[in-house]
């Protein structure tokens, strides 16, 4: 799966769990939490949706690796390979 696909998977999940947020203008290198109204509960949902939809596991100690879109793609891509 390409980086672009992985990026889109994460964006789709964010759009579903935070329907009021606009995901079009996200800066990939900046913290998601700062750009969107996401809290730790929302990050849990991103993790839970990755498991539910794509059978991808993110252990708790790796949650910080989902901080930016860039880091999400870097961390998740091998898991989708």
């Amino acid at each position: 799966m390409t980086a672009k696909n992985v990026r889109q998977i994460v964006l789709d999940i964010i759009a579903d769990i935070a329907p009021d947020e606009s995901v079009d203008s996200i800066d990939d290198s900046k913290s998601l939490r700062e750009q969107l109204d996401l809290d730790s509960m929302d990050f849990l949902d991103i993790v839970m949706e990755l498991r539910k939809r794509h059978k991808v596991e993110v252990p708790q100690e790796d949650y910080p690796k989902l901080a930016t879109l860039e880091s999400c793609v870097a961390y998740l891509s091998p898991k989708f390979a």
Partner: protein
Amino acid sequence: MNYDAIVIGAGMSGLAAGIRLAMFDKKVVVLEKHSIPGGLNSYYQRKNRQFDVGLHALTNFIKKGEKGKPFSKLLKQLRLSYDDFKLHPQTFSKIQFPETTLKFSNEFELLETEVREKFPQDFENFLRLVEKVKDFNELSLDIGYSSSREVLKKNLNDELLIEMILCPLLIYGSAWEEDMDFAQFVIMFKSLYFEGFSRPEGGVRTILSLLMKKFEDAGGEIRFRTPVQEILVENNEVVGIRTDKEELRAKIVLSSMGYPETVKATPALAEKISPRSGHMTFLESIFVFDKKLPEQSTITFYNNASTYSYRRAQNFFDPTSAVVCYPDNYEGIQEGEGTVRITYMANYPQWKELSREAYLGMKTKVGESALDLIKKLNPTFNGELLFQDIFSPTTIEKYTWHQNGTVYGSTDKTRDGKTPVKNLFIIGTDQGFLGIVGSILSGISMANLHGLMQSGDA
């Protein structure tokens, strides 16, 4: 039968926890003793009129689209839409003491203006207190106890202002008498004064049917008339529960029965701890008249003394203070009959001891006292009384199975939901969040913490 999770109680916290777990494909069953959902926030019908048991007002009001607030977290976590709740905001509410009255509404400026006018010498101090409340992180799970009265005395000079600010916050959620933990104070201050009140169209039924539908759509199972007789523990780890008919096994059990009630149902826990039952219980009187009352406020926090005494009533009930709710005084409610609800603090042990006859006599006395108060607050009102109903601390006990008929639960809370038994967790009032929004968030956060985050292998 084997489940990932058993949730005890189909109240606000139990349904919310059930939704979160079912949403992420956990096999979950909610067991409810009563024949309908709601727990402390249930509903009933008399003579073709629909009533809510507990709901006066939904706290934590937000406008559509507001972010980062408890209510917006709830919407996101349960994937519900703001419009589903059909919220009608309050007109305004007031705190009425003999010396003066303070009004507040869903716009915090009203309370600020009122304090500036009525307590000018303390206004700057009040603003500093407000800043302190804003900056306080009340959701941190590891803050120690500090007395709200002490904090208020350090910040404000006028004793009357302190009493008036505390009055609604205590009676809308404190399990403790006379005082509350400052972290709870902050939660309540934000919920009531910063955010405010609203009422869903259709009352508590609207919220419950949203939660029920969400839970069932997510694949959750719910059983009514299913009392849990024992929570089963092996080697200090929960393994399931026993009803009067069968045993159900599960990896985790989330109990919204209350902390002392959960301990009572779990012999392995009763050996270790004995959380106290609270003292605070109430009497609720409901009156329906043939027309609306002149009073415009949604809720009047009434106190007929300079100090506010929040404690178990000395003599069956305490008519010195009352919460007076006018459920028709929300924006956008059509004219019709006029309903008033009056809440008094009560004394459970005394009510429990009454003979049937004495019990009915005491209820009549409560009704007369409440009607007098309605007349005092609405001197020109001449409406005809169509219906009245009163429920007592023993009624509350009968339908909620809370020891002492408590409404705000135990004075021993478990903020992280943990008990000395592994995988047995407390949710709802005794986990320490308050009100309907608080209970729902309790169910959500405990399900997240103990049911979703810890169970990658489940």
